[in-house]
């Protein structure tokens, strides 16, 4: 974990709602795991006292580049879009606990919306280790199906469903996933970006006795475990207890997450 400035190499929209930022991360001297995040200063210090957490979309150690894929939502991410190549972003990270790969078997990633930003790094890592990766991408519209091409290019099998086509409801998604689990030797399930899909992943992991992990979100202040802003409830050894998304998570074993 480190506090540092990173020069912006690129920052551009990939569609109406999502942007992609590439930073020069040569200041970084630590391993960055998929599922970890950085805490970014997006705006003016006085106006925006809180940083914004963003998952690592891609970290390429050789070229020392760090990438984020972000949804333009409120004042923080809006201000990120104003930053130009050559400007600096102030970051803290890498933070939190990332994903772990299955010992064996293929990975089944279930992502909705910008949730794919988080799972993308995992897909890359798994492919780099030559593991089979299957990704179910869900989104509102075909336009919001992010990075499907990039995932296919690295050799992941991508399945897309959208609200627009009427293919994203649980009744259709569930059998599709079960079919994949049966046919593709799935060793672990991962999900991010949708409560509904996370719940489904949890059910399936339990039903098929699969390893699974969920990436969770919470509003954060410190991002490093000091303030308890990011509390969530987890189930551990049959007991409910409070954990911090920023430092105990954001990735938790799928059976521990209490989905409200």
């Amino acid at each position: 974990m480190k506090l540092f400035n990173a020069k912006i190499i690129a920052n551009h929209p990939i569609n109406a709602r999502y942007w992609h930022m590439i930073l020069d991360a040569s200041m970084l001297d630590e391993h960055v795991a998929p599922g970890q995040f950085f805490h970014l200063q997006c705006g003016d210090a006085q106006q925006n006292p809180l940083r914004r957490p963003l998952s690592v979309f891609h970290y390429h150690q050789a070229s020392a580049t760090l990438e984020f894929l972000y949804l333009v939502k409120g004042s923080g991410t809006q201000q990120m879009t104003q930053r130009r190549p050559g400007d600096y972003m102030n970051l803290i990270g890498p933070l939190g606990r990332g994903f772990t790969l299955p010992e064996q078997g293929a990975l089944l990633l279930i992502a909705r919306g910008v949730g794919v930003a988080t799972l993308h790094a995992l897909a890359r890592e798994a492919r780099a280790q030559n593991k089979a990766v299957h990704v179910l991408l869900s989104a509102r519209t075909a336009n919001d199906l992010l990075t499907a091409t990039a995932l296919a290019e690295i050799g992941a099998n991508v399945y897309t469903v959208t609200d627009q086509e009427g293919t994203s409801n649980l009744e259709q998604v569930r059998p599709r996933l079960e079919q994949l689990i049966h046919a593709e030797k799935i060793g672990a399930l991962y999900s991010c970006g949708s409560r509904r899909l996370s719940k489904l992943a949890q059910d399936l992991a339990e039903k098929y006795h699969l390893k699974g992990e969920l990436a969770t979100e919470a509003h954060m202040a410190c991002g490093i475990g000091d303030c308890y802003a990011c509390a969530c409830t987890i189930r551990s050894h049959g007991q409910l207890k409070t954990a911090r998304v920023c430092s105990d998570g954001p990735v938790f074993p799928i059976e521990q997450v209490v989905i409200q």
Partner: protein
Amino acid sequence: MSDLSVHIGKLILKNPIMPASGTFGAELTPLLDINRLGALVPKSVTVSARDGNPVPRVCETSGSMINSIGIQSKGIDDYVTHQLPAYRKFSPPLIASISGETIDEFETLAARLDAQPDVAALELNISCPNLRANGQAFGMSAEATAQLVRTVRAITDKTVIVKLTPNVTRIQDIAQAAEHAGADALTVANTFLAMAIDSETRKPRIGNIMGGLSGAAVKPLVVRLIYQVHQATRLPIIGSGGVMNGQDAIEMILAGASAVQVGTATFLQPNAMTTIIDDIDDYLNRHQIEHLTDLIGQVDLS
């Protein structure tokens, strides 16, 4: 190098900058040179373990933030066995912030911590707006404040600092009640009771509906409170609320503060406190002031 040291009760701090309770922890170690601080103030501790309030527990408002953590605490046993030892490796004196729902709880906590050599002073959080309904707190009544402070005073000879609430008609009355009951110093002030609503979802932006406002926006209110308390009592004051840089800290010191806490600024810049210490040092050099204490309460009213 000017002399930045200040007195708070029996403590001598090497400089006036310390964290605000609830915004600081040993997790900052990789990002902040903790040994440079004037004092350490960990998160408020309660007698028993508490889970805290529903999420979202923080939201951002214009130049400020609202929090309703609700004192998430593992309880005093864990504090003594796990948390205090984690700060032992640092040199600044540790001020333990304690919080309770009854005077008895404050008494229990004070008794436990009085016995801890690692604890240099107690800060009584009688002002948390996140514990009871509608932001009610002990610190809203002069009598309750006096009774609580007297009880703690009877138990410990350590420096007792009372953290006042800003959500009162006359903070001077509460300050004087604390002074007469034996407090050694006052923290002015805790957060301001606040609320924000998302106009799209119509939901409160804090799970607990209301929370405490902190950050740059509250500074003009806190400077006024410090000035009022400084006029009403002779106790040293620790300013708290909206300090983002050295100038803000100097402003509070001119208004009457002997020391200054930094909370929200640390969320944005984890090393804000050491930057502020450097800023203060620069200011004193630039104005050729040898001792920071020469500035306390020196607002020029001529």
